[in-house]
């Protein structure tokens, strides 16, 4: 069985700019007063407190590749022209995942149903961006380890985007045994906790 590396608590700074963009802020036109800004800042901090980022990654050698698919040595086939193009030079593929945990979405739902939807919406955005930031950190760690071999990662690609079917999440889920970090997957390939993300990247020469 391929060795999977798990992270129990990834230290992540909330990417505040990305949170604000996700909430629809347009820098050039926004006009809110100090108290509205302070409320926003406080809510973002609250969201940060609720996120506990766990993650996992593993590398798999490429068994076969064509212009339309990449097959790994463990039998997983990713059918995607875009991905095959991006990762054409890769001899190894990294599968990775990160989750912000249950606590933040439970709190979000509680706040929305009890009349503080503003807080709920903000911590939802914080959780989404922080989970993504967890993937950024995992990528960063891998890049720093493989740079000594003259290698780097390609841009990452995720199931459900472009021409890579969402069903690929199931393959990644199984390969990384994500139940170990508390993630489950529905029959519609949705990840639970909701703020969980997966990605694929290729290892290529620097």
């Amino acid at each position, binding site marked *: 069985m391929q060795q999977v590396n798990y992270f129990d608590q990834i230290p992540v700074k909330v990417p505040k700019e990305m949170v604000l963009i996700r909430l629809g802020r347009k820098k050039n036109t926004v006009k809110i007063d100090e108290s*509205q800004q302070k409320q926003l800042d406080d809510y973002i901090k609250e969201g940060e407190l609720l996120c506990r980022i766990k993650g996992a990654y593993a590398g798999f050698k490429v068994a076969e590749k064509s212009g339309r698919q990449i097959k790994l040595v463990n039998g997983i086939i990713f059918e995607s022209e875009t991905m095959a193009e991006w990762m054409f030079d890769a001899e190894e593929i990294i599968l990775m995942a990160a989750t912000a945990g249950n606590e933040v979405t439970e709190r979000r739902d509680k706040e929305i149903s009890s009349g503080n939807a503003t807080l709920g919406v903000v911590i939802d955005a914080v959780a989404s961006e922080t989970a993504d930031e967890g993937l950024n950190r995992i990528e960063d760690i891998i890049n720093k380890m493989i740079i000594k071999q003259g290698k780097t990662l390609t841009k990452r690609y995720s199931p459900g985007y472009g021409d890579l079917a969402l069903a690929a999440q199931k393959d990644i889920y199984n390969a990384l045994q994500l139940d*170990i970090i508390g993630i489950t997957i529905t029959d519609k390939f949705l990840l639970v906790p909701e703020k969980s993300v997966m990605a694929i990247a290729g290892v290529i020469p620097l």
Partner: protein
Amino acid sequence: MNIDSLKKVLKQRIVLLDGSTGAELQKRGMPSGVCPEKWALDNPEGLIKLQQEYIEAGSQIILTFTLGGTRAKLADFGLEKEVIRINSGLAAISKKTAGKNALIAGDIGATGHFPKPFGDMDFTECVDIYKEQVCGLLKGGVDLFLIETMYDIQEARAALLAVKESCSLPVMVSMTFDENQRTITGTDPVSVLITLQSLGADFVGANCSTGPKEIVKVIQKMKPYAKVPLFAKPNAGLPKLVEGQTIFPMEAKEFVSFTKAFVKAGVNMIGGCCGTTPEFISEVKKKLKASKPAKLKAKSYGVLSSSRNTAVIGTLKSTVIVGERINPTGKKQLQEELKQGKFLEVRRYAQEQSENGAKVLDVNVGMPGIDEKQTMISAIEMLSTTTDAPLSVDSSSPDVIEAALRIYPGRALINSISGEKSKLKKLLPIAAKYGAMFILLPITEKGVPETAEKRIVIIKKIFKEAQKYGFEKKDIVIDGLVMTVSSNQKAAKETLKVIAWAKKNGFNSIIGLSNVSFGLPERQIINSTFFNLARKKGLTMAIANPMADMTIKDKMAEALLLGKDKNAVNFIEQFSQKKTGSQKQKSEASINVSDAIFNAVVKGNKESIINLIDSALKGNQKPNEIVDKILIPAINKVGELYDKKEYFLPQLIASAEAMKAGFAKLESLLENKADQSKKAKVVIATVKGDIHDIGKNIVVLVLKNYGFEVFDLGKDVHEYVIISKAKEVGADIIALSALMTTTMAEMKPIIEKAKQQGLKCRFMIGGAVVTSDFAQQIGADGYARDAYEAVKVAKRLTGK
């Protein structure tokens, strides 16, 4: 050469280490894909020749070829049961090769897994893995150990503890840094140094990384705080992958050009890592000639570290605030959480205190009904990844303190060690083993001495004992012992005498600030004044509530007056907001109630709107007028601001919630309640198989605010339920939400079946993956990108 002679040499010359072994053996024929250690053991000729060449080139310390010799790494090749044989065999080969010409360092590398709190490997398991390798290397006869190419400070600690708990041989520890001089897990050079040297590393350094240029910077940062010799083993720059081979393009001449810089930065030992060869070492030796190593000149003050930061404590620096709030005493919510194994409040206190100036956080989880040791471990693990501030471990149990120190990835402060014999006997060795600083509490079994003189007697006794374990004055923080002046008017003066004595005698000092005013009114004034008096006497630390304004106000005023707050930016930002706030409140009071209600909706102030509406009603304003002439225009104004992108989602929702609160207050008072039946009806749901509903929930809120009657069916809703409800209520609109490509497909069948069953309603869809094109394709009447657009579409579809 032996260790004693090495130490003598180190005082006079810079010692030469070896260069790359693995990469060099690959160039010389070691096949790729094999276990390097096993291959070298079975084919030692190449290794022997290479190590002989390094010795001839001038290397005074040679590494065993065991970088991947742990059970975890050998398991990749099915060799996990051969740890002792492989490590001892390779150590013996190097030992024989070196003879008396060089020392042999047992080489220990990363396991490929990260221990907790960052990774998932149990810390004890990690230490055990390293102990096994250490055992093999000792059997092979190594002279010292080199733990290298460590990515994570916690893993480096595990390896260091494994060596220290197995033998008394010297140990070198080096980590690898990126181009920003941080390790992979974010530790800076000073934190690395402080943590490792206090834990007992005899030499600390940096290796591998991106090349000599960056490692010079790492050494420069470490040197001012180094109490141990420093070493460097850089790569020959960044490698390139050429036809499947890793090539290091930097040549010996360029590598050697950094030698002077390393000497100036303060290295005591130098070698090379990946890409370097015996030629590199030979050239470095020539360049070094008779270079003398820089002397150790660590400044004399105490330093604590976390995995990502340090806190310097000493009379030259400003008083360090230790945040006291992580303590369950008197905090019901925190107590409840700790009983449930939750740590949200702990994180909150950590965040708030750090933001308000605490440089160190005291962690106390002592309370009945919980396993204090396990709770402390969990709290320390969690705080290690969520805060940069170093921690103070606060417990009356030596077991709890020891457990915390073992897993803390930094240099902690122990709160505290007193003169009670049994505790002193237990805690000093623990503090020494883990290199912690400690708060010295001058009390004994006889209780708290009233006078400074009696306290000083105890301090001297404890320090004498502590010196036996290697403690120096700056490792100790003397607690002045603050007692309340409400019961003893001399209490404060006695504490101040102890602080003055501590300063005079070269110790750090600390006080538990709030104790002085216990039982008195205006505590903050007393605390603040006492804080200032103590600082004048030389106080270096204070345990306090950083959110108590007075302490922070004093520090900020001092910074301003001493020119440390450029252009008074921080002071103005901190205090002018409060002034503006009170001014704003005054100005709000002066505008009329109607405008205030309007503003409350526009500003999303749901807290004040109820009172404002009450005032309006008392002023004989009619409920219908308030709705029609104030609330509705206000929410429309919000819509305009949203359209102009002056507002974005949080403001839209805050206003909607304020509107909702105001409308709820007035609803029962409105005339023409029959008009309510004329509201357009919307049945809304997230489709079957989809569990995302936040977007849908916001649409519900906003639609209600704009006068729609909304029937929210929730998430993962079967088409049958949606269609039945629409029939039941006579829906004007069915609104569907889906967030995934796999669930959006559920929308079309719902629309088709509803139409087949004769429903005349309109259909509106939304969700992250949905588009207006998709809406057209499936026969929907409208698509809404966000909540506000949903209102516009709903109005268009219903004509209302």
